[in-house]
């Protein structure tokens, strides 16, 4: 059973390193507090965005935290795919360059799974295969229009 854990852990770690490098142009990896006793250990994310020295997770900026969290989610996805992913404004902290990089990665991952992504950011919307426009005239109900791209 510890064997099963290690297998999953190492696969997710490998994925995380690749994905984090692509998204943030930095280095990141997983880290177990206690590699001898993984089933009671804590799992940490070691992240050096853009060549900066390692810093505690809490002191990272909003954008850096988003990229780290999303890298972890994508790393899980590559190991154990879900059929669909639903993201609501996960790009809200990202600057223009990072939104582009994220949108490109979602396009890639969308070859393997369905991605439904709510966003207000132009680079994300422009990278999608299609956009569902949602509107609500004054006080009236939500209406939905499909826009092919």
């Amino acid at each position, binding site marked *: 059973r510890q064997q099963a854990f290690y297998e999953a852990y190492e696969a997710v770690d490998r994925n995380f390193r690749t994905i984090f490098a692509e998204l943030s142009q930095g280095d990141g990896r997983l880290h177990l507090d206690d590699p001898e006793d993984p089933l009671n*250990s804590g*799992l940490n994310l070691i992240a050096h965005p853009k060549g900066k020295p390692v810093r505690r997770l809490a002191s990272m900026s909003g954008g850096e935290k988003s990229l780290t969290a999303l890298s972890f989610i994508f790393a899980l996805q590559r190991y154990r795919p879900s059929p669909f992913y639903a993201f609501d*404004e996960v790009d809200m*902290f990202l600057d223009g360059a990072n939104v582009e990089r994220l949108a490109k990665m979602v396009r890639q991952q969308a070859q393997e799974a369905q991605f439904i992504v709510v966003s207000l950011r132009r680079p994300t919307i422009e990278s999608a295969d299609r956009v*569902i426009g949602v509107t609500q005239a004054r006080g009236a109900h939500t209406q939905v229009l499909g826009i092919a791209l």
Partner: protein
Amino acid sequence: MFVKRVEISNFKSFGGTVAVPLLPGFTAISGPNGSGKSNILDALLFALGLSSSKGMRADRLPDLVNQSSVGAAAGAAAGKSSRRSTVEATVTVTFDLTAEARAFGAAIARSTPDTPEGEEGSASGLSEADLGALPVVLDDEGRPQEELRVTRRLRVTPQGTYTSNYYLDDRPCTLTELHQQLNRLRIYPEGYNVVLQGDVTGIISMHPRERRQIIDELA
């Protein structure tokens, strides 16, 4: 597999019935603040039983029923039910399983080479374990389904009591049965495949042990 449609009736900001058609690949949802984008995701979670009322920004389930008239809402804000009749909110999520059905058919064909011509799709060549591992849904005759419909209906009486019922292809089922079916399709309540508005950095602020448990559940 992919979600091919979410039909939303009388749920949150959706009065009447609105069908949201979906396709594989990358779909963006956009529009002005307050238009209902996040509510579409809430509808998906609602139907699949993947979220509590708090997870859908409602204090209690009855808050999820569309309250479109100023009168009804004023009554609700004052804490009393102002409805004259029982109301209901319904969401149906339709999964497209065509690829899974065909993969299953192909697997059956490969594993039962002696099956006479004309006899298709019998699961006889595969063990229970094989069947459990394949993400496929079999109908009563053991044939793979190309579609699966999950429906949830929430009824609220004028007194404010409510019932919530789940259906798989229009047949009543328990939440447990629904989750077992979804698990077979690799959909789990703690799947980390859904990130709600404002939650993206949650993985960073969670306790390291909680984060490790994510890997436990995968292994």
